[in-house]
C-alpha cells in the first residue's frame, strides 16, 4: 500500500484530506481538480454508496491514466441512474451494452486499443479500459464473460460495486446477497427467513483462483485505501479485479446518512475482509482498528430486522451466531486482527 502512514488525524489521515497535508499526499477526492467522473444531477437515491464508490474509483483511475480512460458498464443501478436517455452524468468515454457482457465489451475495447497501438508502432496502448457492474451483473449474469476475461488475462480492470442484491429492479437476491438477509425474493418468513446460508459466491476469491495479476477488495468507508488500490491496479497490465462494498440505503433499509458508517462496520466486524492479492497470493490486509460484534453492523439494517427480538417476535439468535461465526472465520482466515490468530 502506498497510502501515507498515519500518526494522527491532523497530519496523516483517516479523513479525505487535510489542510496540513502536503498537496502530493492528498487524496484524489480532496482535490478540487478531481475529474468528477459522475456529475451532479444523477438520479441515484439519497446516500447512494454505489454513486460514491464509482466516483472514487473512476476519479482515481482517471488520475492514474491522466484521463486516458474508457469505461464499459453493465446494466444496473449505476447505468440507470447515470444515463437515462439522452442524458449522461459521465465525464469520460462510456459505453453500455448488456447486463451480462461488460467484461466482454471491456475486453473488446482493450483489444481494439492494442491493435491501434501496434499499428502506430507502440507495444501497448496509453489509453486504458475499465469495466464495471453491480454484484448481479458480475457474480451472476456476467460471470461467464468475467471468468473468460480473467482466463485470457485481458488488459482490463473490472470493478464490481457490491450492494449485495439486484437493487435496480427492486431488491431481488443475487449470489452476493449475504445469508439471512431479507430481499424481495427471500422474505423474512418461515423457519429459515431471508437468504439461505452457504450459497453466496465470494468473487474476490474466485478471481484469485484465476491467478490474475491483481485482486483487491475495498469499501467506500476507506477512501485512501480504495484510491491506492485503483492506482496500484492501473500500474499493472492484464486482468485485474476490484470488489468494492457499496451499501444501499434503499435495499438494506438503512438511513441514507449511514452509508459510510455501515461500510466501516462491515470492515470492523470482519464481515467484509479488506485485502489485496497478486497472482493468487494475498499481499496485504487492512487490519481491524476497533473490533465490533456483527450485531452492531446488522441492527441499523431493516433487511436483518427479523434476526433481532422485537415485541411479539423472538428473533433468530442462532442465525446471528452463525453470521458472527462467519465474521470470526474471516478474521482468522485473513488475519484481520493485529495479534496473529492461529486456527
Amino acid at each position, binding site marked *: 500500500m502506498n497510502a501515507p502512514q498515519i500518526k*494522527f488525524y491532523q497530519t496523516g489521515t*483517516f479523513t479525505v484530506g487535510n489542510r496540513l497535508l502536503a498537496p502530493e499526499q492528498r487524496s484524489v477526492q480532496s482535490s478540487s481538480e478531481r475529474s468528477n467522473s459522475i*456529475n451532479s444531477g444523477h438520479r*441515484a437515491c439519497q446516500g447512494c454508496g454505489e454513486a460514491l464508490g464509482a*466516483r472514487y474509483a473512476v476519479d482515481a483511475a482517471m488520475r492514474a491514466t491522466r484521463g486516458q480512460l474508457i469505461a464499459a458498464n453493465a446494466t444496473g443501478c449505476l447505468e440507470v441512474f447515470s444515463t437515462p436517455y439522452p*442524458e*449522461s452524468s459521465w465525464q469520460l468515454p462510456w459505453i453500455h451494452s448488456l447486463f451480462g457482457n461488460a467484461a466482454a465489451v471491456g475486453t473488446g475495447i482493450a483489444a481494439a486499443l492494442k491493435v491501434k497501438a501496434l499499428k502506430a508502432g507502440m507495444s501497448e496502448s496509453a489509453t486504458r479500459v475499465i469495466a464495471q457492474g453491480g454484484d448481479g451483473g458480475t457474480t451472476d449474469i456476467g460471470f461467464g464473460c468475467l471468468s473468460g476475461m480473467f482466463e485470457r488475462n485481458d488488459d482490463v480492470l473490472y470493478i464490481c460495486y457490491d450492494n449485495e442484491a439486484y437493487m435496480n429492479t427492486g431488491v431481488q437476491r443475487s449470489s452476493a446477497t449475504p445469508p439471512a438477509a431479507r430481499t424481495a425474493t427471500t422474505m423474512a418468513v418461515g423457519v429459515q427467513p431471508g437468504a439461505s446460508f452457504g450459497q453466496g459466491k465470494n468473487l474476490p476469491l474466485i478471481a484469485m483462483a484465476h491467478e490474475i495479476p491483481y485482486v483487491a477488495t475495498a469499501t467506500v468507508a476507506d477512501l485512501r485505501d480504495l484510491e491506492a488500490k485503483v492506482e496500484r491496479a492501473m500500474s499493472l497490465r492484464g486482468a485485474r479485479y476490484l470488489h468494492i462494498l457499496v451499501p444501499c440505503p434503499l435495499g438494506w433499509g438503512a438511513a441514507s446518512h449511514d*452509508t459510510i458508517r455501515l461500510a466501516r462496520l462491515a470492515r470492523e466486524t470482519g464481515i467484509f475482509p479488506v485485502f489485496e492479492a497478486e497472482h493468487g497470493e494475498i499481499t496485504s490486509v487492512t487490519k481491524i482498528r476497533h473490533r465490533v460484534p456483527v450485531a452492531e453492523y446488522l441492527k441499523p439494517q431493516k433487511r436483518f430486522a427479523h434476526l433481532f427480538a422485537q415485541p411479539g417476535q423472538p428473533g433468530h439468535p442462532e442465525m446471528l451466531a452463525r453470521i458472527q461465526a462467519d465474521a470470526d472465520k474471516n478474521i482468522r482466515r485473513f488475519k484481520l486482527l493485529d495479534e496473529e490468530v492461529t486456527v
Partner: protein
Amino acid sequence: MKDARPFAITLDPGSSLANKTGSWRTERPVYVDRLPPCNAQCPAGEDIQGWLFHAESGAYEAAWRHLTRDNPFPATMGRVCYHSCEGACNRGQLDAAVGINSVERFLGDEALKQGWQFAPPADESGKHVLVVGAGPSGMSAAYQLRRLGHRVTVLEAGPMLGGMMRFGIPKYRLPREVLEAELQRIVAMGVQVKLNCKVSDLAETMRIGGYDAAFLAVGAHIAKRAFIPAKDGAHILDAVALLRSMEGAERPMLGRRVVVYGGGNTAIDVARTAKRLGATEAIIVYRRTRAQMPAHDLEVEEALEEGVMVKWLSTIKHASEGALMIEKMTLDAQGRPQPTGEFEMLEADSLVLALGQDVDLSLLDRVPGLAVQDGVVQVDPATMMTGHAGIFAGGDMVPAERNVTVAVGHGKKAARNIDAWLRGHALNRPPKHEPASFERLNPWYYSDAPKTMRPQLDLARRSSSFDEVQGGLTAENALFEARRCLSCGNCFECDNCYGVCPDNAVIKLGPGQRFEFNYDYCKGCGMCAAECPCGAIEMRPEQV
C-alpha cells in the same frame, strides 16, 4: 433538421446537470460553528481552539498573537493556570485531553526567546484610565485598554509589578524573569506605571489625575487571622507575609519543623516553600479530608511527592514554643468538621497560617454608590462596573474564584466595557455559539495519539532548590500536542464533506475558505453531517 441525428436517435445528447435533484431534499445541511468546550471553560476567555489552529501548522507567532488578544501572559499562564480547559476537553473522552497548558507555555516561552512584542495602538482615544494595582487583573486591563488606544496609568502600592503573581506564587512555579518579561512587554506598549504608590483615597486620586475612568484590582493581600491561643515564644506567621518575604534578600527563618494551617493552594505553596528553605518536615494541618481540600489536586500531588505531610481532620487548639496542640475532627452528616475532644501534641518550630485573604478596601471610603458585601466589592457581572459610574473592579476584590486566570479575564472584560463606556455605546457582544459536545463528533476520524507529558524536575533537586519544577515542550512535541486538538465544532478543512457527497453538491472554496453547499443538487442524505469529524454540519428541516 430531422436528418441531422444518426439513425434511431431522436433527442440531442444532454447532461445530467439539467436535473435539479436538490428538489428531493427534506432536510438541508448547513455549516455551523460551535463553541468548543475549552473556550467555553476558560475564565480568561481565550480562544484556545483558535490559537491551537495556528500552532498546528507550526505558525507559532500567529498562534501567540491570537492567544494574546485575550491574555497577555501565556508564559505565566502556562505555568500557573489550573487549566480547567483540559478538564473540559472532548479529547479526554477518547484518550487524554490536549495539553493546552503546555502548548500555551511553549508559545509564551517562544515569544520571550524570539522577542515578540505587542504593537502599540494605531489611534489614541484621548481618554485616560486609572488602573489601581499591577497584579494580573490590573495589568491585563492596562494591556487591553492600551490596545484600544487609551492612555493608561497603573498605580501600584508595592515595590514591583505583578501583584499576587509575584508575591503569592513561589519561584519554583513561576520564575521571576518570565513574569518580569511578560509584564515589561505591556509597559513597552506605553502603559505608565508608578510603583510604591498606594491609593488611599480613590475619589481624590481620580480628581487630581483627571482620569476618565478607573479599574480597581488591589488584590487580597491581608491575611485572614484565626484566634489561636498562644504562649510566649510561639512562632506564628501568616502565609501572605511569608511568601512576600521570599521576594526580599533575607530568607525567612522557619526552623526544622514547620506546620501550615489551612487547605488552599497557598497552604500548599507555603509547605513546599518551607521544604525548600530547609525544613526537614513540613506538615499541613487541615480540618477536613483530601476530597474537600480546596487546593488544586495536581499541586497536592506534587507536594506529597516532595514529602510534604498532611494531617487530615485536624485543627490547632493551642500554640506554645516548640509544640502545638491538635484536636482531631470528624465529619458530620453534612460533611462539616466537628470536634471530637481527642487531643495530641505536635512538635513545631513555627506555625504558618494560610487561612485565606482579605481585601483592603479603605481606598473606597469616600466613593459614593459602592456596595461591599462579605469583604468584596459588588460589580455588575456583565460589565464589571461597580455601583459608581465609571469605576470598575476585578480580580480578588470582587466576588469570584481567586486565581490568576479569573483575574486576567476580569481585566479583559472590564477593559472592553470601560472602552464602551468611554465611547458612550453599549458593548455589542455577538451571541455565543451552541456548545460543541462530544456526541456531535465522529471520533472514528481521530486516530490514537497519547498526550505528550512535560518533563519534571527530579525530586531531589525539587525539594532542595527553587528551580522550576515543570519543564516545557520542545517545538516538535508542541506541534504534536497542538495537532491533537479535535477542532470540536469548527471546520478544519479535512475535506470529508467534499469527499463523501454522492452528488458532488459540496463546493470546495480553497484553503482557508472552507466549503459551500450546492443546494441545486444536494439531496439531503445527511452523509456530510454524519461523517464530519468535528460536528460542524447540521441538518435542518427544509422549509416548504
